[in-house]
């Protein structure tokens, strides 16, 4: 739109740009800064890394102690690995479950399609916290699942699901499934069906058509959905905290405890920064995909 003069344009661009810059991006700088500080018994509970030196200059004291601590205490390494593993396998299961769902919805008649989409989106709108809590009603020792299985005589004592890794997996799959289905549906819906028909006419068996045509063309949806599940799942706090047990130590919980339990803000900052570095790869893939989408 050429008629928008330069000053007018900046009136539109600047408010969201500045707001997100100050309140979303700049905070990471502060976390980085404080991760090099030390705990102190004052408000706020950490030392300044910039201090006035005796000769009136400024002195920068960067303490790598927090990062060294991350490597020396096994808990952090364990929690990072556990989080990555849990998020990875949950994402795979979501994909295995979500792909056929998205495919079935994309092939449904238009009227059914809208209803099915609403059915998938609705849980996404309702409270995440409350849905995790609701899951507890199914999987706890005297929950619906165990009652049913005991009743049917399939088991003789309740299955122990709560406070185990299995509960965390179930929680993540249950909560994040819509995030997988929606982007997959978006790409599968746009799929050019004449390609599939052409392949069939040329004698390609259905599985071959799927592998050669459908799957590659839906790859952007697979990547978007996987990232929307994987990245937040690595940092999940509510699910391991409510459904998990002492050994389901995900990094989100460690960070929370470091912060609210030990009040060690510098170590918590270092955990967050190290965590972000770990997620840099997936976030970069996700951002690359977004830029590509935005630029067409």
């Amino acid at each position: 739109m050429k008629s928008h003069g330069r000053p007018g344009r900046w009136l539109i661009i600047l408010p969201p740009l500045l707001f997100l810059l100050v309140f979303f991006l700049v905070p990471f700088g502060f976390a980085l800064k404080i991760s090099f500080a030390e705990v102190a018994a004052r408000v706020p509970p950490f030392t300044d890394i910039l201090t006035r030196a005796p000769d009136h200059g400024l002195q920068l004291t960067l303490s790598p102690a927090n990062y060294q601590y991350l490597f020396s205490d096994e808990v952090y390494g364990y929690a990072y690995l556990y989080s990555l593993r849990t998020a990875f396998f949950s994402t795979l299961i979501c994909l295995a479950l979500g792909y056929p769902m998205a495919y079935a919805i994309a092939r449904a008649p238009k009227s059914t399609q809208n209803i099915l989409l609403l059915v998938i989106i609705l849980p996404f709108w309702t409270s995440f916290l409350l849905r995790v809590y609701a899951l507890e009603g199914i999987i706890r020792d005297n929950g619906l699942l165990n009652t049913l299985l005991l009743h049917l005589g399939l088991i003789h004592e309740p299955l122990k699901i709560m406070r185990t890794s299995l509960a965390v997996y179930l929680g993540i799959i249950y909560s994040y499934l819509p995030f997988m289905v929606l982007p997959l549906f978006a790409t599968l819906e746009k799929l050019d069906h004449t390609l599939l028909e052409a392949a069939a006419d040329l004698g390609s068996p259905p599985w071959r058509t799927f592998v050669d045509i459908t799957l590659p063309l839906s790859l952007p949806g697979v990547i978007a959905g996987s990232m929307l599940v994987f990245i937040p799942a690595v940092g999940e706090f509510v699910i391991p905290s409510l459904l998990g047990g002492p050994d389901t130590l995900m990094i989100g919980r460690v960070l929370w405890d470091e912060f609210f339990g030990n009040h060690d803000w510098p170590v918590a900052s270092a955990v967050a920064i190290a965590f972000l570095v770990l997620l840099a790869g997936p976030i970069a893939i996700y951002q690359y995909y977004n830029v590509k989408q935005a630029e067409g």
Partner: protein
Amino acid sequence: MERRHSPLLLTILCLGIAILYLPIVVLITYSFNASPLVNVWGGFSTQWYSQLIHNRQLLQAALLSLEVAVTASSIAVILGTLAAIALVRFARFRGRLLLIAMVNAPLVMPEIITGITQLLLFVSMVQMFSWPHRGFTTIVISHVAFCTAYATVTVQSRLQSADQSLEEAAMDLGSGPARAFMEVTLPIIAPALLSSWLLNFTLSLDDLVISSFVSGPGASTLPMVIYSKVKLGVSPDINALASLIICAVGGCVIIAGYVMRRAERQRELEAFNANQAYTADHAPPG
């Protein structure tokens, strides 16, 4: 695309939907359980619902959460719409890539990281400017940050599909760009504004992690109170509260969706009729 569905696909679809809904159905059922014991069905009762009205702590938290959600989602829709206009209509400007990155990152950023970094910002800001005090203001600011991301994405996709030639036609007829946008494009993207407001509202109402970090003493949102109760185990009054919230939100979303689709059809119908009338008026004689 109407084709025969394979039984396997249908089974997985039904299984997936069952996974999504079963826990909610069970939760709502048990909220009417007369027995306080979670594993015993003691008959039908609405006692947990009537108890909620007398719980001052929950009511206060609910009020705070509603105030935060209304404020944050309203600001976020404005910022998100501006960002969407910038991204869709201005092909190149300084900071465009940065803006794309910043409106997409909050969608995947683990909340715990956003929460901790924003708290550190607020604490440092208080040291420098003695503002903002932790509580309502800080919760609203951090909610606006992630809500803006969702609003931008929702409005952006709508704006991309909106026909820009209508706006150009209005400008050819002498209307200024701002007025052309307000009178032509704004009504077209209005459904997206409403749905992004609703989405932001529910996301803000639901946020636990970020609020826990950035809130101050005395400012507990509803999810914070629910979390601290739920952490102690299943409690029947939370079942009732959760059922109320889920039904209210679900009902609103369904009604909003229905209203918007009707409005959409109405608009399309009017456009179609106008087009027909125009064609009839300008039809060549004979």
